[in-house]
Each structure stands twice: as C-alpha cells, then as structure tokens.
C-alpha cells in the first residue's frame, strides 16, 4: 500500500494570553514524478486567513496570522499522498576521479547545496568521515555517498534529546549522537566537503505497519514527528536519496515535503507572536492507509519540554526538531 493519509498536528499552549501571532508552515507534500499530493488541507484553531506561495527551492509555504488574543494555537495539516513505484533508473557509475574534474561547474550551478551553512559548517572532523567512506566505497560517486550514509549510520547513535533544534553538527559530532536532523546535517557536511552537492529533505517516514497491505490501525511515524534525510546530486544530474538515520535505502515509505540547504530552510512550522507568556509545544504525526477510515484512533502525543518563560514582548514560536 503506497497511498497514505497524513495528519500532522502542531499545538502551541501558552501560559497566558498572546496575540498578533504570525506563522509560516511547510507542510504540504511535494507533487512531482515520484509522488502525488492528491489533497492537502490546513486547519488552524483559532481560525485564520492564510496565503500561500512557493519559496526559492520550490517548496509550498502557507502563511497565516491570528491577531486576537488566544492561549492555544493548533495547526493541523492533512494530506493524501500517493508514492510512485521507483522508475528503473540505471545507477550512475561515474567514478569520483572523473567527477572531480568537472566539479567546478557543479559548484557554480549548485552553489547553495555545496556551500557551508550555519547548521552545516565545514569542519575538519567531517574529512575523516569522508576518508573512511571513500575507502569503503567502490570508487564511484554513488558508492561514496552510500558508504558515507552507512558510516554515519554505524558511528552515530540515535538518541532523542541529545541535541536540540538549533544544534549545528558540531554538537552531534562531539557526542557522536543525535536525531535525524543531525544525521542528515552530518551527511550533508561530508558530501559537500568532498565536493558533491547535497540537499536536505524534510518529510515523513511511514512505518512498516502502516504500509502493510492489511494495515487498519493508524500508527505514529518517524519517531512521532517529521523525518529528515538527504539527496545527493549524481554526475548524471539526478538526485539520489540517502537516509543515514535509517541506514536503509529510501523507498516508497519516504514522503517528501520540502528541500533546502539545511533545516533552517524547511522548518515545518515557524512563527512569532506578542505576549509575555511562556509556551509549550506538542507535535503529533499520524498516518493511515488512505482507503480505510475504520481504524481505531490511538492518539499519541509527545510533549516537548516547556520553554523557559522569558519576558520579552515579541517572541518566536518554539521550533520543532526533526527526529
């Protein structure tokens, strides 16, 4: 089964009244040759009027505001997505050494996906990982990227709470652990330092149970939140996906929402509001096969720790880390 109904709920709870809340969400799944977004609906409580646009990377962005006082803001994005069977693409077998000669042009064309960023600075520690990966690889570009994904998967531990949403890769490199956001960032650092173009992918990983043909019960996916992985540009100009968190090939259960240089470009929900209140964030993503509506509801919620209640007039919404 590769047709899914996805419900991504984000809820902000404030200690006191807040107002003039402005938000921007990237929650609409992509619609292209690899997946179809059959329907998308965004509901907020309190109600709001919204506008939509596509950003510099082609992602759908929805903006909305709530002016009146409120103590709770709920954003629910519901979409139905059809994942397509992968086309039988002949794997690119260009050797790294050949690629190196032409990489200057790629660097110009895909500057954004090769330059260091705030989350993904170029660090010496990444070179070691790149060397290990190159040694393990078959010497092709695709082989290198796959090896890099494996090396990262093997040498980093998946630990929730080890890092936070604003962590750069320095944090996860120093403790050898992190969540999918960190795995993706480290992988981007490694491939970019090796001269390859890599982009961050924000999306969902549908759990095996929900994808099974007989799935009835809805399930919580991607560690109860959205997921992240990377795509690396091959010499034949196709983007090849890698999931260093999962350590397995990217397939029909990976639903893409947005591309960017790093997490900063694709944050699912970001916003600012006025008020002196502290806030708590809860995020919940549920999925079920789109054809079946009879499953028993089993709501799981993950409450993030409360943000410190600092007293400033205008505040950013608490961002959600991709896990």
């Amino acid at each position, binding site marked *: 089964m590769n047709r899914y109904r996805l419900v991504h709920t984000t809820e902000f709870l404030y200690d006191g009244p807040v107002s003039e809340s402005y938000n921007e969400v990237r929650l609409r799944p992509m619609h292209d040759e690899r997946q179809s977004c059959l329907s998308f609906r965004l509901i907020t409580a309190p109600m709001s009027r919204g506008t939509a646009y596509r950003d510099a990377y082609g992602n759908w962005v929805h903006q909305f505001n709530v*002016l*009146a006082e409120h103590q709770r803001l709920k954003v629910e994005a519901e979409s139905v997505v059809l994942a397509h069977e992968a086309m039988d693409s002949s794997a690119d077998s260009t050797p790294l050494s050949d690629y190196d000669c032409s990489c200057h042009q790629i660097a110009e064309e895909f500057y954004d996906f090769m330059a260091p960023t705030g989350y993904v600075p170029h660090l010496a520690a990444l070179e070691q990982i790149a060397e290990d990966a190159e040694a393990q690889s078959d010497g092709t570009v695709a082989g290198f990227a796959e090896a890099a994904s494996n090396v990262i998967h093997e040498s980093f531990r998946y630990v929730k709470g080890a890092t936070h949403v604003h962590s750069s890769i320095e944090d996860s490199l120093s403790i050898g652990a992190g969540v999918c956001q960190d795995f993706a960032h480290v992988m981007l650092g490694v491939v970019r330092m090796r001269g390859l173009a890599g982009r961050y992918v924000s999306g969902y990983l549908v759990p095996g149970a929900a994808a099974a043909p007989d799935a009835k019960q809805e399930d919580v996916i991607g560690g109860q939140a959205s997921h992240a992985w990377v795509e690396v540009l091959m010499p034949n100009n196709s983007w090849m996906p890698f999931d260093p968190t999962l350590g397995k090939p990217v397939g029909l259960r990976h639903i893409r929402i947005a591309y960017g240089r790093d997490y900063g470009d694709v944050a699912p929900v970001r916003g600012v509001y006025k008020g002196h209140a502290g806030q708590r964030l809860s995020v919940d993503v549920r999925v079920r096969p789109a054809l079946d509506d009879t499953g028993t509801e089993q709501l799981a919620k993950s409450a993030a720790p409360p943000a410190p209640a600092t007293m400033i007039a205008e505040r950013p919404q608490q961002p959600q880390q991709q896990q």
Partner: protein
Amino acid sequence: MLSRIAESLFWLARYIERAEGTARILDVNYHMLLEQSQQSYRLRWEPLIIMAGEEDRFRKLYKEVNAENVFEFLAFRHDNPSSIVQCIAKARENARTIRDRMSREMWEDINGLFHVANSYVPADEIAAGPHRFCDKIKFGAHRFHGVTDSTLPHDEGWDFLRVGWALERVEMTARLVDVQYHNLLDTPSPTGALDNHQWMAVLRSVGAYEAYHRQYPPPIEPEKVAEMLILNPQHPHSIRFSASEVQAGLRAISGSGRGSYANEAERLAGRLLERLSYDRIGEIFDQGLHGYLNDVLRISGSIGEDIARTYFYYAVVA
C-alpha cells in the same frame, strides 16, 4: 491620524503644561517664602515637593529642604522626571517623533526652548534666584501655545493637544489647592493673622491674582480662593474651566453632540463637569475639600487612561 501621533501630541501638551506650572509655582513661592521667618521655612518649602509628588526622590538626593535645593531639584535635576528641564526634554522628544505632523514653527519653537532650558548653568541660576529662569520657561510655554494656535490646523491633532493641556491643568490646580490649603491652614502663622501673603502666592502661581480682585473684595479669604480656582467658569486655570476644555476637545474628536457621549472618557469628563458646574463651594467644604479634590484627581486619571484605551492602544480584533 495614527494612534501613536495622537498619543505624542497628548503627552507633548501635558509635559509643556507641567513645565509651565512648575515654573510658576516655583517662581511665585520662592519670592514669597524668602520673606518668611526661618522657622516656618521648611514647612513652606515641603508642599512644593509634595505637589510634584516627588518627596521620596527628594529625600534621597538632599539632606535639607531649603530654597536652593528645592529650586535645583524642581528646575534642573535630570534625575527628577518631574523637573522642568526633564519635562521640556520629554515634550521635545514627543515632538521629535511627530515633527512631520506639526508645523515647522512649532518644532523650531519647542526645539529652541529645549536648547534654551539646557543652556542655563544651575549654579548660576541658584545664586541669581529662579525668576529669570522660570520666566523664560513660562513665556516659552505661552509662546508655544500661541505658535501652535496660529500655525497648526485646528483638526483632531490640535484637539488632542487641547485635551492634554486641559487635563494636565485640572490635575495641577487640584494638587495646588489641596496641598496649599491644608498647609496654610494647618500651619500657624507667626503673625497670628491669616496668611494673606501666602494666599496671594497661591493665586499668583496660577496667574489668578488680578482676576480674583476683580471678582472679590479684599481681604483674601481662603474659601474664596478655593472657589475661584475650583469653580470659576472663565479663568483658564480653574478646574471647571479646564474640565470643560477636556470635554470640548474629546467631543470634537469623536463628533458626539450635547447630552451624549461616545466613550468612557467622555462620560467621565461630562460627569466631572456636571459636578463642577452645580456644586457650591460651601457644599464642597461641608463634604471635605481634600476628599473632593481627591475625587477630581481620580476621575482625571481615569479619563487619561480611557483616552489611551480608546485612541492609543485599542485592541486589534481579527
């Protein structure tokens, strides 16, 4: 008109009025008090600090309540938010944020007054006495009124200035009468007689001395002074006159007619004016002057708050 601009005009007027009022009180009382005996000295100076509502701050800064200290404190101290130079600075700061909305003449006038006020050397002025400085401020404020009247369109911006001026006057006069009345009656005069001298000072500090004499025969009687300053319908510094200005300004802004009101500030202003128009001074004394004036101050404070709620900080509803 932008809410912020209306607010700045309102406060610009209040600060100018406060500076002028302080300058008047300081000037008149200073010269009167110098003629007093040393013994009653402190008792006479203290009310000036109380009127400004700055007793605590004064005590932190000075050991002694004397002419020099009070003058310096009320005129020049930058760490006294109610000092004349601070009021002028705040008036000018408000003007600066809206200078595109006032006439060039108004801006140059208030800006000039600011530079003049800051050009005085406090030590020199303390030695020379406050008259020269206070006179400059008083006339500076009068000139600003005049310049405003003749160069600013009499639109809603002008009305916000008018309300600011008048509301500040209500409060200045109410505090003056309250503090001086009790102070003068409670303090035995060394001469034994009622302190004619002091009452002249009170009248002079709001420029009502001559007007008083046109209306009442000598000698000066405290109750009549109170009547003049609270209930006189024509004198520009009386509470009643100022309250009617507040009401007229607010009505001009909202466009509401006689007998109706468009917001809470207008309702309160109307009620206040009603009382001032029909109360008699005897009745006021019967119920207690202090309590009566306290009521005036409380209502005036509420009017200020409600003007802010109605025009400056209204809640935005989606």
